[in-house]
């Protein structure tokens, strides 16, 4: 009631004939950017976990609950990335459309070390690093937008097609570039295991210090094994990420006498002014950085 009155009030201000935008909340900056690309001017997207922040250890605040309860569409990654999501949707009594952008993709398990049974297989949630799977993300987000705002259907479909074409363009470019590099040289080491999908798509072998989540602590055995691996396989490409602790990785590079090849953007965009301000830039920047190191 109150809302509709407020809406009427807004509409009766011809001077600022504000088109009421569809309020969208995204769980973190990367799917937030996709929703912004597809929604265009019709939507107003807020990301709960902003640029340069870690979605694995996010603690929702009352302000986040407020944002969510006022929104009509909630875009998440799903696949177990946002462990805090259930509590948040409950707390905000969210009534809108909930989209799991990663729903229906072919998932990969978080890599297990050979010869060891940990007993719990975790799904790797970082699927946005594979542009082919991002096509599924785009379809899911578009369907959600149309459901929340049927009038914008033509608009959303058109923009989604444009965005999908851009993503495919990036994918083709990356595939071509990586194919030109001998398979033996396609290896890299990162601080947490977030690039599995990227590795799978372009045939890069990945080593990582921590598992898929940034919350775990490393063991001496794990670090020692990595040092041996890096030495044996002569891994030349070592990368930091934009929000994990860099100290362990620095230790490892000293030990194995390799250089750090730069910073990758794994779970968050950079600030808009940074090198990975939106999804396409993030992908392009990551691929460029990796290519530079392994060539």
């Amino acid at each position, binding site marked *: 009631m109150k809302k509709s009155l407020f809406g009427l009030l807004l509409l009766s201000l011809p001077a600022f004939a504000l088109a009421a935008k569809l309020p969208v909340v995204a769980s973190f900056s990367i799917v937030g950017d996709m929703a912004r690309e597809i929604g265009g001017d019709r939507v107003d997207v807020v990301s709960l976990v902003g640029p340069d922040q870690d979605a694995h250890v996010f603690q929702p605040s009352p302000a986040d609950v407020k944002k969510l309860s006022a929104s009509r569409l909630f875009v998440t990654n799903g696949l177990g990335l946002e462990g805090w999501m259930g509590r948040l949707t409950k707390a905000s009594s969210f009534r809108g459309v909930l989209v799991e952008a990663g729903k229906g993709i072919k998932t990969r398990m978080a890599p297990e070390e050979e010869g060891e049974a940990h007993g719990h297989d975790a799904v790797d949630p970082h699927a946005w690093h594979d542009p082919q799977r991002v096509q599924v993300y785009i379809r899911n987000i578009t369907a959600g937008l149309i459901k929340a705002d049927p009038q914008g259907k033509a608009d959303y479909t058109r923009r989604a097609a444009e965005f999908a074409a851009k993503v495919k363009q990036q994918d083709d470019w990356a595939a071509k570039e990586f194919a030109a590099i001998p398979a033996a040289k396609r290896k890299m080491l990162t601080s947490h295991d977030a690039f599995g999908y990227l590795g799978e798509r372009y045939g890069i072998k990945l080593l990582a210090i921590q598992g898929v989540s940034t919350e775990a602590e*490393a*063991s001496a055995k794990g670090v*020692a094994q990595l*040092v041996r691996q890096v030495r044996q396989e002569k891994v030349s490409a070592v990368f930091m990420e934009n929000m994990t602790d860099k100290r362990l990785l620095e230790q490892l590079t000293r030990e194995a006498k390799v250089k750090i090849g730069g910073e990758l953007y794994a779970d968050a965009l950079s600030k808009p002014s940074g090198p990975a301000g939106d999804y396409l830039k993030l992908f392009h920047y990551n691929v460029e950085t990796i290519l530079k190191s392994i060539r």
Partner: protein
Amino acid sequence: MQHLYDLLIAPFVDFAFMRRALAGCLALSLGSGPIGLFLVMRRMSLMGDAMSHAVLPGAAVGFMLAGLSLPAMSLGGFVAGVLVAVLAGLATRFAGIKEDASFAAFYLLSLAIGVLLVSKSGSNVDLMHILFGSVLAVDDAALYLVSGVASVTVISLAFIYRPMLLESLDPVFLRSVGARGGLWHMAFLMLVVLNLVSGFQALGTLMAVGLMMLPAITARLWSESVEGMLVMAVSVAFVSGMAGLLLSYHFELPSGPAIILVAGLFYLFSLLFAPAGGALPRYIRARHFES
């Protein structure tokens, strides 16, 4: 023989990060062991834990000013810790409140300010997580810090050892000979904060307090003399560090908790069998007196 070598020595020979971790543990043991012992003797065993929370706002301010720079965060943490210690000390001296109560009040206040600052700084990088060094990631800067703090601690303790002991055991006597008990106490609290902050760098919050307190408490069970306790505290701390690292290496356990676990097992064993305060020797002595 070869087998023993592989088990105990090889990890440190093969890997520089293991050697660094060991050096860090040695420095921490030398500094934190004696400090922990004095905390136990002054009935302030839980102080370490309280102080480890009190440093948060300082670390947060350091983070806001300089980003993820460990020196800035450590310095901030140190300042916040000393501030809490001084305020609590003043409250104890000039208002009618027991020391532990005023410490509890001030550290909670500090913690609340810290959490507010962290959430206002717009980043949800878990600062405690960052302060949570990992003993496997000890770099040169952290090693210098830890060994520097250990040196300062050992030298300062040599100076304030006698008055501290007297004040621990008989504050009334110390006052009657005209010495300033409060001053020694403040100097000592500074050392506590200093050691905690350096411990965070190397081991992380939880583990730093653990390596400070557990060996010290264990030492009290083994020896009657202060000198004996000092030697014991430092040795238990260092052996725990080394054994914990080896456990972490051979069985794939996180290193910090592994180290504290070993120290904890030492304590549990001593609780039963230690000659000075263990349960079994005491029981046997009691029987002996009865007969």
